[in-house]
């Protein structure tokens, strides 16, 4: 009885204007964010929290506006090192991923080393990079590269390695060479994996850049935040955080849209398959 009543009740609750807005997929995250900010603002004012401990969102917004020129310069530097590191990671990751996925020998020889390498915390490498290259742009680019390289290699290799055995039989019985199989099946098949890895990789590249900037930077958002923090300008630290978060979301969304555009067939066929298994 109660089981039957439950969905009915939910249906009725949906009829109001505000609940309808809440159940809307697009509006819901915005509403949650705005509510959180309002609570934060309210708490800061009500409990009179010191601004160097936790600044209210309004103060952060003010600082963001006040320092906009400086922030823009540092954000540009961070974006620059992120993108350069990411481009190297895409080129290197694609090449190595194809090599590892294509050749069983290379897979056996390199895969354990790649895993070991990926287990090293990249922060620990920055001091070594500083010894070799000094502080500044180069260690940030290299750290961005090191962080974003691995997921691309693993995904491309996985896409190549998981071709259905029946498909291989069909092609081999037609006399296809390994090159044919790679070009007709392996490579297109690994593309959804590749594009999925790009959106992960670009956000990791940003993490790498900011890490390097906080440890060994003379520019960039990470450097700006560390600097502001040492002067107890907490609102500016938070402003830097807001900018990094906004950049991260924007580049993720950009690459997610690429993924959808170039390899939409993969996600659509996935959903189709779920429907088929359900019916």
């Amino acid at each position, binding site marked *: 009885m109660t089981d039957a009543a439950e969905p009915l009740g939910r249906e009725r609750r949906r009829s109001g204007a505000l609940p309808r807005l809440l159940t809307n997929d697009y509006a819901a995250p915005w509403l949650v964010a705005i509510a959180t900010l309002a609570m934060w603002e309210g708490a800061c004012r009500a409990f009179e929290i010191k601004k160097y401990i936790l600044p209210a969102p309004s103060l952060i917004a003010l600082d963001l506006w006040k320092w906009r020129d400086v922030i823009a310069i540092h954000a540009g530097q961070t974006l620059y090192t992120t993108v350069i590191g990411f481009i190297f990671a895409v080129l290197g990751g694609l090449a190595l991923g194809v090599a590892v996925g294509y050749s069983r020998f290379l897979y056996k020889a390199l895969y354990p080393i790649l895993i070991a390498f990926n287990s090293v915390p990249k922060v620990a490498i920055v001091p070594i990079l500083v010894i070799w290259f000094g502080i500044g742009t180069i260690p940030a680019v290299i750290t961005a590269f090191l962080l974003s390289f691995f997921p691309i290699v693993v995904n491309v290799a996985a896409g190549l390695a998981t071709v*259905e055995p*029946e*498909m291989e*039989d*069909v*092609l*081999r*019985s*037609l*006399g*296809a060479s390994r090159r*044919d199989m790679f070009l*007709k*099946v392996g490579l*297109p*098949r690994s*593309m959804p994996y590749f594009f999925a890895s790009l959106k992960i990789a670009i956000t990791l590249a940003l993490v790498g850049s900011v890490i390097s900037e906080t440890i060994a930077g003379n520019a960039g958002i990470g450097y700006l935040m560390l600097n502001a923090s040492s002067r107890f300008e907490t609102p500016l630290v938070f402003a830097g955080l807001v900018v990094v978060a906004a950049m991260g979301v924007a580049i993720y969304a950009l690459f997610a849209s690429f993924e959808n555009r170039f*390899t939409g*067939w*993969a996600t*659509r*066929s996935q959903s*189709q*398959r779920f429907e*088929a298994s359900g019916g």
Partner: protein
Amino acid sequence: MALADAAASPLADDAIPFVTIDDVDLVYGRDESKVHALTGATFAVEKGGFAAVVGPSGCGKSSLMKLTTGLIKPTKGRIVLDGAEVDGPVNIAGMAFQNPTLLPWRSTLKNIMLPLEIVEPHRSRLRAHRAEYEARAQDLLASVGLAGFGERAPWELSGGMQQRASLCRALIHEPELLMLDEPFGALDAFTREELWGVLQNLWMERRFTVILVTHDLREAVYLADTIHVMSARPGKIVASRKVPLDFPRTLENTFEPAFVDIVHELRNHISRERQT
């Protein structure tokens, strides 16, 4: 040469066999983990014939497919295809499996044309004669009841339609041998019976040689002119039987006593094999 092979094969009558599988053993792995998949498997299929291989599951039926197309090599014995001993992948065969394995990033038409991009002489002619080949693919689609579906993505097709497309892909390069490994195994009973008709029409029209591996006895009797029963592992042919019913066969035929008797007889062979 071919005549001599025919004489050596115990199963061939007057016809020259197109496929001869002669005393073939297949052993997987080594030492402890050794698996005898096939032992002394022997049979022949004449040109334009339709042979079905039935047997309990895990009897090495699928190994037989891979051996015939040269994807794996026998441990002992030999396989002769169109007068030449099989040594490495052959390119006169088309294959279709239970899983249609269509490529989701290609349209149905492009999927069907995939073999043309690989097999000579089509491979070098494809670019210059694209329109002609596309027309051929469209014809083939129409003949399996998929006219107008060429531009659809494979995942927009139902399971039965995907399997039809898979059959088209196996036939587009006009292979002389069609190898089918439980091609209708994943379909519902009605679709399966419908596709028996589709396959039979294609075969009667074009008269390629077919080897069909299946565990569906009605399917075997409906489609094949000769049926070979395999034993449980290690697989060998324990019985071979002609199906003396006239072509084309219809679903009505499947309820007639002559048809049912053959199914019954095969069924007894299989249950005997399962017990041993």
